[in-house]
């Protein structure tokens, strides 16, 4: 109910702004909706959204898996931490644009380059978060697991993983928003399809309704995925914690 009101408020604000600024720079909602419908009817909207989503899923999964493993290792093993730390600082501070451009130069304008570049951008934050989580692990519970001879795999699943849960959720959350932003840049610079590519086209043609149609659909998809997937996962990861009032 509140969400609906919030959405209506957005529409109204947009409409009023469109009336004030003028159709050329900011088309009103119906004009954008019309473009959305024609793009949907031709199928282009879904193809491009699908391509973008596939890139998001792949690079996100890659970066999360790799980042979690590296972060866990760095949190557990001092030597790994020492070796990895300078790389981490470098990657954390490397602008996304540099990574993407270099990836396209070195690996060509390929899908692999795009996905790798997006993953590399997300990787360091996942590593940092998981390293922090690993450092915060409760040693006394490890001792308990050792004393009771709980097998390693089982101990990892039931003793370690639940402690890392909130950190994984946090890494996923911040990582996903990073990926949403970067994937469009990567597409804009070197892919022949996807929401980023279409926005590039719209920019060159100065086709503002097209630009808005893609941007808003994309935003809507992000919103849905965040509410339907990410938030329940976060709740689940923290469900044993005492709830805040």
């Amino acid at each position, binding site marked *: 109910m509140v969400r609906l009101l919030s959405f209506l408020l957005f529409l109204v604000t947009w409409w009023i702004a469109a009336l004030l600024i003028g159709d050329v720079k900011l088309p009103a909602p119906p004009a954008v909706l019309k473009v959305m419908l024609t793009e949907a009817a031709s199928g282009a909207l879904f193809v491009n959204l699908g391509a973008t989503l596939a890139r998001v899923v792949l690079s996100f999964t890659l970066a999360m898996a790799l980042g979690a493993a590296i972060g866990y290792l760095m949190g557990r093993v001092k030597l790994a931490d020492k070796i990895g730390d300078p790389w981490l600082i470098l990657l954390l501070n490397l602008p996304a644009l540099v990574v993407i451009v270099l990836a396209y130069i070195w690996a060509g304008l390929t899908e692999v380059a795009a996905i790798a570049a997006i993953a590399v951008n997300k990787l360091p934050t996942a590593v940092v978060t998981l390293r922090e989580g690993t450092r915060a692990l409760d040693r006394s*519970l490890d*001792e308990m697991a050792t*004393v*009771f001879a*709980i097998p390693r795999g089982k101990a990892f699943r039931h003793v370690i993983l639940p402690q890392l849960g909130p950190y994984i959720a946090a890494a996923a959350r911040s990582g996903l928003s990073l990926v949403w932003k970067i994937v469009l840049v990567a597409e804009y610079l070197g892919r022949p399809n996807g929401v980023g590519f279409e926005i590039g086209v719209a920019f060159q043609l100065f086709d503002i309704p097209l630009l808005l149609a893609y941007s808003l659909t994309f935003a809507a998809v992000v919103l849905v995925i965040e509410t339907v997937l990410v938030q329940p996962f976060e709740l689940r990861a923290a469900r*044993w*914690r005492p709830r805040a009032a």
Partner: protein
Amino acid sequence: MQLEVDITGKHFENAAGERHDVLAGIKFSLHAGEVGVFVGPSGCGKSTMLKILAGLDHNYQGKVSRPAVARLGMVFQEPRLLPWRSVEDNIRLAAPHIDEKRLSELFAVLELTEHRSHFPGELSLGLARRVALARAFAIDPDFLILDEPLASLDDALAAHLREQIATLVESRSMMTLLVTHNLDDAVYLGDRLFLLSARPARILQEVPIPTPRTRRSASEINHIKADLVRRRLAKI
């Protein structure tokens, strides 16, 4: 089955690099079926010693030999339950083979039945301690380590649990080590008492209690207690 302990030294180094001696001379042996009780001032190194005996700390001078096959059950000084698992699941994780009958029995004995599905965050410290006890007993240990298991329980419950521990100890032949500040617990449960010095801990005296646990009368227990108090005073 027998535990042979000869720890000649254990120290910690603090952040400033200063050496901090914690254990000095701990030498004893313990047979299956025996309960060894350690009594000593707070901070003297009892938990540190138990950690070494449990095989959690290998960084010490001396030698500890315990039977490799011995199944270890331990009640740490803090309950150490997994906050994200219910009471029952906490126990089942440590004792995956326990059957329903034995589990209900344990819960009944420790008066935990109605807390079975609660999470540790919903338990009082006393309840959590009882869960930790249940977990240690659930695995049917050959070697049982109890670090102040009855602290923070009221007298009546402590006395009740003391009896339960006695029953469980009698029920199978295991090596049991108990650390306590409570002389009642020590005399009621122990076969041999070890009096420890202040840090770094040494065994000052070993006091055997020859009468079997089940046949100790109230007057005998009081007698031994008075004797212990006298010995302690003599040390100061």
